[in-house]
Structure formats: C-alpha cells, structure tokens
C-alpha cells in the first residue's frame, strides 16, 4: 500500500489565506455598477386574509425602481419537499393569505436602503385577521383554526396535519408482553436557530442577453438554480448561480428563500443588478429555524437490559408551510433505528402546521432532539434494572456488518469500540453515581453522562449525486472543477487533498473552481452530510482517470511496466531507477502530440446506492436510505450549583467512528463546533415567541455561546475504514452526528450530579431548582 502524503494529514485550509486577510468575498461584499437595493415588506399578522395591496404611493417615490407583489409572479409554488405526495405549498410572495408573522408580501428595489425603507412605509396592505394557532398539539384539535387542510392521506380526527411517517417491524405488543420492564416518557425540545454569522443575502443581475446571474449565500448552487428557474419560468440554461464565500449555514440556507426570488425578479423588472441583504432582526423573527419535537417513547426491556420493544410518537411543530417538517419526522425514525438493535418497533410521526415561521433543517435535523429522549430514557431503564449506562448500551449497540430493518447495512461499525473507549478514557463507570452519593450538603455537585448517536452520509435527494472534472495544466499543475459549496467545513480543501493524493501534486498547486452551475459539474450539496463520501469519491475517480492516462503515457515512453512506475513530485519514474522518468509537464505535451490533442482530463461520478431509484418514502420509510453511517458516543462531565441551578460543562469527550479522517484538523473543528452548538442548545439559546411574534430577535437576548462558554472538548478516533490510492473508499460524515449524542449525555450527567431528571430542553436553572425542590 502506498504511503499517504495528503489524505489523513492536517493540511491547512486552502481558503485560509483569503479569510484571514479579509480578501474572501461573500455575497454581501458583491458590488456592481448601478446596483439597486432591495427590501421586503412582511406580514404583521400571524394569520390573515389579504384584502388589498396598494403600491401606488411607493411607486411614485423618487428613487424607487420597482415594486412587486404576487401579481407580478407566475404563481408557481415551491417547497423544501416537492413530491407527488407532498407538493410545493409556498408562494415566493403571499397571494390571498398570510400564515405567519414575517411572511413576504411585497418587494421593493430602489437606489439606496433609505429609499427602500421609505417606500415600505408608503405601501398599504389591508388585512382581515384570522384566528391563529401556535402550539402543535392545539393545532391538531378539531376546533383549531385551519391553516391548511390535513393531508388527504392522513387518517384520523386531526386538524392541520402536513404529513405523517409511520413505520415498524416485529410485533410491538408481543415485545412489550415479553419485557420484564416497560416505561413510557415524554420529552420536549425548544425552538433554536442556526446563528450563521453571515446574514442571508442575494445579488441578482439580469443581463440584456437574458442571462440571470445569481450570487447567494447558500449550501449548494444547483438546488437554488432549479428552484429559481422553476418559479421564474426560465430554462436552466439562462440561470447561473455562482460561488461567493459562505459565512456559515448549518442547514439554514438550503432551499429557496423569498429574498432570492425577489432579487431575481426585481433585477428582471429593472434591468439593473439588485442586492438584498436580510437584516439580523428579520432572520431571527421571520426566517426558518430548527424544529422543536415532542417525543413520546415507550420502551420494553429484559432484566439484562436487552431492548425488546420501542414505540414512538413524534409531533413536529412545522410552522406555516410544510418546509422540512415532513423530512424531520422521517429522519427521527431513522435516528431512532440506527444505533441500537430493537426487535419490535413501531413509529409514527406527525408534522403539524401552526402559524409560526417555516422550519428548515438545523444541524442534526432531528437527531439531537430524538437522541436526547432515547438516551435519557435508556439511563432511567438501566437504573431501574440495576445495570450501568455502559453495559446497557453495549448490550444493544449494533455490530459491524449488521443489516438494518430497512435493508441498509451498517458495514464497518465502530460503535461498540466508541462506547468502550470512552468509558476507559473518562473512567465513566468509576465516576458514575458518585455525584449523587456525595451527600446533599455539598453545594457544587459533579456528574458524568453518556449519549450515543449515528448519522447518515449522503442520501438520494436532489441533486442526488456528484460529478467532478480534474484537468492537467501544461506545467503539470492541476485544476479541480467541483460543484461542491464550501460553507466553512472545508469541502474545497478535502477534495484538493484527494486530488493531491491520487496525483502526488502538492495541495497548493491545485486550483479549485467550485460551486458554479455553469462551469462546474453537479454536486450533491453541503447539506446532506455527503460531501466527504459522495463528492470525495467522484473526485477520486476523476483524479484516478488522470492518473491512469499519465501512467499509460509514461509506461509507453519509458518502456516500463505500469506497475513499476512511481508518481512523485509531479513526475513519474521507474521504481529503482529515479533517473528514468518524465515530468508531468512532459507527459502533458506528449499527450497533446500523440493522443489527438488530449490535454489529460478526467471525470468522476458518484451516486450513493447507485441501484436505488429514489429516496425512501417519507410516509412509510420503505426503500434504502443510505449506504454510509457514522457512529459516535459522547460523554459530558458537569458541575451543578445546587443553590443557583447553574450548570457548567467541564469536559466533553467525543469517541467517533467517522471511517477515517481525511483531514484531522478539520474534523476536530467539526467536533468542537458541534459540542459548542449543543452547549448552546442545552443551556443558552431559545427563540422566545408569543402569538407568533419573536420576542428576542437579536444576539443580546438570543444567547449563543461566547468564548466564556468554551467547552473543553476531547476526541477519540475509532478508525474503521481506509484510503488507498485508486480504490473506492467509505469514509463517513463528521458534520452532524456530534451535535446529537452530547445533549442526552449532558442530561444524563445532570441527573448523575443531582438526581434531577430533565424531560425538556433547555436545561435551565429554573428546571433544576424545581427538580431539587428549591422552588415551586
């Protein structure tokens, strides 16, 4: 096996120099001659009929160049999911009704932001307010106001059901009947947001030749092109979505947003470039946040801790349109299925319309909420059965090669190693129970807890697959063309490492052209945890084809067997005779002369589950989901102040099977960032809403972790896969799973410290003091 020079190394980010010098251009930084500023007028009501919109006064204001309403659009709807069962349900601008505070009603383009603001004040919209409902369980009641009709295929007396997922296997009743111990619990999570530092922004420039150029802060250009082209009624060939640097996304910038559509249409109307920057207040109060879930889980176990039966009911508060609400109830099923073997299983999940802003994926997309419930309950079961948290997890954790109930296979699964290694590393079993045993006289009490999670790496949602082109330059350096969007995770760096490894060319001699619908091939996108595996293997194939062409030429020219050739320092030579060799530069010119002008170009394509036609059914879960699953166990050690109820996270450890790290430095960054985000989830962050209005639309009142909240984060790599030049590989995702197990670990650690079991997030001081009996 070749020694690896680039893959698996702590290669510095390719875009690092641009970012530390301020040269990196984000969408907000794009400037064009004659550019107009756009803005959006939003609904002040959570639910209302639009009776009339009068824009005439705004249009007369000097400096205003265009005002658009739904009447200026084609009336084409869009949605996060667009399938026959779940057709698109959002208009880019509201038509007859508004269904949440902040829904987009009118858009304006003017010569500067001050004129835009004045124009907004001159637009008169008459509304007839309608009864509204904000709580998911309230919205399900027959007497609740109807936001949208319940999905025709969902049976039952419920109102406002946008979609349902139902699945199971085994015999759930027999499973409970055969159990020695059964318990049922209900867990709730709260509303949080992504907190990307770069605001959402779009620049649209409609050219006289009919080309619509778009720069937009996103997680991948191809889905944006598809949705813009469809809603604007344009062929794909005239819509070009191009790369700008992206200042964080975390799931919040995936599908089409109204400001993107409006910037495009305003540019088409005016013939001028239009920029819309969404204000932080708008992002907090009107944009798509994550998804609070209600998780009811009933579990049956044998005396030895073997799980026999598990029954779930999930309710998702989806907001005013379907959004990703029908995806999260599917995914929660998957996150329940993955880490542990349960012979009898029944699941139903409901996505419920309410008069709240629309929801979208947020890093982990349901996994933190789901794993918090399961991991908390598992510790309760273990305690009742008198076994420890490690033993009950080892008893049920999946093993390598295991077939999942949906037909997928976990392949090489390091979960059991993760659990055992983290126990050893943290001495969990020795420490566990000592906090509670310490006696109630200590004010500061410490505890330790564990959680487990698993996450998929790539699945079949549009655009499904990745393609990559690798080209040799005349001087022997290399160009990489990829549709992948680097959102800060380091996509361009790891893909460059793969090219570097296959061709033995230094990473800094690889030019990357990325994320441009016109010049780069299609890419799966940076939101389905498939970049390292799907785009990575496409890159490996493309570079591999170049490698093969170079070797063929060298083999012929050097009259040597291809197996005897060594690639090193942009040169190929015969093993044992370093002087018998040719530089890449010479090989490229030889190729052009002798191979009909071929300058040496390679292409690669990768599609996960290549024999599967579609994504599994969101309704029934039938069909393959992924061929790539990462596993992790995480521990939290906390200190609880029993006087104030404040909790400090003293130490977080992540033992993870990510296959193998392509770039350990970037993997550590993903782990640290996720632990921090989970800490915010557990203790600090909450979007507070009243009657559909956001009460804390700013970072003073929505408290994200600061450097004072930095959590000591350690990690243990469990390597289950390997990289070999010229071979397909199966590395796994690292961007979402590690925000997921730690939440349950923190809840379990708080219990271990003070004996207070928390059934809802956030883990506030108030809840802990109430649990301690110190307040009512």
């Amino acid at each position, binding site marked *: 096996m070749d020694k690896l020079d680039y893959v698996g190394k702590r290669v*510095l980010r390719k875009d690092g120099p641009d970012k530390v010098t301020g040269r990196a251009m984000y969408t907000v930084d794009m400037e064009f001659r004659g550019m107009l500023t756009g803005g959006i007028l939003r609904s002040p009501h959570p639910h209302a009929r639009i009776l009339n919109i009068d824009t005439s006064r705004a249009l007369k204001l000097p400096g205003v160049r265009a005002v658009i309403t739904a009447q200026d659009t084609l009336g084409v709807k869009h949605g996060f999911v667009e399938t026959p069962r779940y057709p698109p349900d959002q208009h880019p601008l509201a038509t007859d009704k508004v269904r949440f505070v902040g829904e987009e009603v009118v858009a304006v383009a003017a010569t500067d932001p001050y004129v835009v603001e004045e124009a907004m004040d001159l637009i008169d919209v008459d509304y007839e307010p309608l009864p509204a409902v904000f709580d998911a369980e309230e919205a399900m009641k027959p007497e609740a106001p109807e936001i949208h009709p319940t999905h025709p295929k969902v049976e039952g007396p419920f109102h406002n059901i946008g979609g349902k997922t139902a699945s199971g296997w085994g015999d759930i009743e027999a499973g409970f009947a055969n159990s020695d111990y059964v318990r049922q619990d209900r867990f709730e999570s709260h509303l949080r947001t992504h907190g990307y530092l770069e605001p959402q922004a779009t620049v649209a420039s409609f050219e006289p030749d009919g080309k619509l150029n778009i720069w937009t802060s996103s997680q991948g250009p191809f889905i944006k092109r598809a949705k813009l082209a469809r809603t604007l009624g344009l062929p794909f060939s005239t819509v070009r979505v191009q790369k700008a640097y992206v200042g964080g996304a975390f799931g919040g910038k995936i599908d089409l947003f109204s400001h993107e559509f409006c910037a495009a249409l305003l540019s088409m109307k005016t013939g001028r470039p239009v920029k819309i920057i969404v204000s932080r207040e708008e992002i907090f109060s009107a944009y798509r946040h994550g998804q609070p879930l209600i998780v009811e889980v009933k579990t049956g176990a044998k005396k030895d801790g073997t799980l026999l039966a598990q029954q779930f009911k999930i309710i998702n508060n989806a907001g005013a349109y379907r959004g990703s609400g029908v995806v999260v109830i599917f995914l929660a099923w998957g996150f329940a299925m993955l880490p542990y073997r349960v012979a009898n299983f029944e699941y139903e999940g409901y996505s419920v319309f309410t008069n709240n802003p629309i929801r979208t994926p947020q890093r982990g997309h349901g996994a933190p909420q789901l794993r918090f419930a399961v991991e908390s309950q598992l510790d309760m079961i273990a305690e009742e059965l008198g076994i420890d948290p490690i033993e009950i997890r080892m008893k049920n954790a999946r093993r390598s090669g295991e077939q999942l109930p949906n037909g997928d296979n976990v392949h090489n699964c390091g979960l059991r190693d993760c659990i055992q290694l983290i126990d050893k590393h943290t001495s969990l079993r020795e420490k566990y129970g000592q906090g509670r045993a310490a006696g109630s006289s200590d004010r500061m009490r410490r505890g330790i807890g564990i959680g487990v999670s698993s996450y998929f790496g790539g699945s079949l949602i549009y655009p499904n697959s990745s393609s990559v082109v690798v080209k040799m330059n005349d001087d022997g350096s290399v160009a990489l063309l990829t549709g992948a969007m680097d959102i800060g995770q380091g996509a361009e760096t790891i893909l460059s490492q793969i090219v570097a490894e296959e061709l033995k060319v230094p990473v800094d001699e690889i030019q990357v052209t990325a994320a441009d619908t016109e010049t780069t091939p299609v890419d799966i996108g940076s939101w389905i945890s498939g970049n390292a595996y799907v785009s990575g293997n496409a890159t490996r194939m493309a570079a591999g084809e170049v490698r093969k062409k170079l070797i063929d030429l060298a083999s012929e020219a050097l009259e040597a067997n291809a197996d005897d050739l060594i690639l090193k320092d942009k040169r190929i030579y015969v093993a044992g005779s370093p002087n018998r060799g040719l530089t890449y530069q010479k090989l490229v010119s030889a190729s052009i002369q002798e191979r009909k002008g071929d300058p040496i170009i390679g292409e690669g394509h990768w599609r996960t589950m290549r024999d599967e036609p579609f994504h599994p059914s969101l309704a029934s879960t039938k069909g393959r989901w992924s061929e790539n699953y990462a596993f992790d166990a995480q521990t939290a050690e906390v200190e609880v102040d029993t006087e104030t109820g404040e909790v400090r996270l003293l130490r977080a450890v992540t033992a993870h099977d990510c296959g193998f790290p392509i770039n350990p430095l970037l993997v550590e960054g993903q782990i640290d960032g996720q632990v921090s985000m989970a800490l915010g989830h557990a203790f600090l962050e909450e979007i507070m809403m009243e009657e559909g209005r956001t009460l804390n639309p700013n*970072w003073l009142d929505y408290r994200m972790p600061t450097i004072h909240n930095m959590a000591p984060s350690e990690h243990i790599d469990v390597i289950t896969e390997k990289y070999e030049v010229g071979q397909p590989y199966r590395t796994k995702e690292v961007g979402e799973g590690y925000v997921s197990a730690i939440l349950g670990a923190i809840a379990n650690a708080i219990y271990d410290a003070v004996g207070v079991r928390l059934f809802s997030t956030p883990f506030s001081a108030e809840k802990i003091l109430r649990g301690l009996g110190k307040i009512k």
Partner: protein
Amino acid sequence: MEKRPGKQLLELTVNDEFYELAVEPQETLLEVLRNHLGLTGTKEGCGTGECGTCTVLMEGEPILSCLTLAMDCRQKKIQTIEGLDRGEGLTVVQDAFLQQGAVQCGFCTPGMVLATTALLEENPHPSQEEIKKGLEGHLCRCTGYNKIFEAVEQAARGKSRDGDLGSV
C-alpha cells in the same frame, strides 16, 4: 419625502492613507469603509453591536464600526483587516489562525484577527482569562472557540521576522 441633511466633509486616515470624503451624518464607519472605500474585509453580522464581526482598530483600540458614526472618526487613524497587509505575507496573528484551524466559514475572522492583534500589542503574554476578556465581544458559530483560543496562544508565543506582530 423628508429632505435628508446634507453631506459633510470627513477627513480620516485608513490603513495609513489619508482620505477626504463627503458622507451623510447618519452614516456609520462601517458603511464608509465598505461602501465608500470598498474595504469589504470588515463584515456586518448584526449591525447592532452584538457580534463583533465589524471590529476595526481606531488609534489601535478595537471598536465596533457598526455603532460608530463616521463623523466621530474625524482626524482619527483607522486600521482594518486590509491594513495588516504590508505586502510581506501573513502576520503572526493571521498565520496562527490559519495554522491552528481557527478559521472555518471565516466571517468572524477579520474581527477576531484585529481584536487579537490589539490584545497582543497591549499585552504580549495574556493569561487565559485575559484572552477570553479580549475576545468576549466576538461571536463565532463554527469553531466553538477552542482553536481560536489556541491560535491566540500560538500568536503570543510567536514572533515575526522583526520581533513584533508583523509578517512571519
């Protein structure tokens, strides 16, 4: 339409260059830097002084340019992220951020780098608490701050060719 107050003359020095600009009285320093001078390395994360991304140095001290009226910068010396570039490569602080993996999406990075530079100019060997104090006004959503913290420690240990915080 309300008549806007007229523009006023602003004289200031940005990255060692002297400028005379006509600005509106309500314009912030951030707007002047980005819109008049094209210095887009300074970012706006919130516009209300909560996130620290718009940090620049005024007379060597970090300030929030989104909360600073441009007209309050008369005759002041301003340094932005672009001002660290002397054509000699990355500075000690920039290099440390890169080496330690303290950069992900990069949107908070210019503010973080300038705040760190100011901190180390003032206090070349800060304690852990002093590092936290120096960066407490800066939000980063990607890194969890661990590697930023390590980058500041590396920069405090490091020295440029000239023994200061200049280019490595």
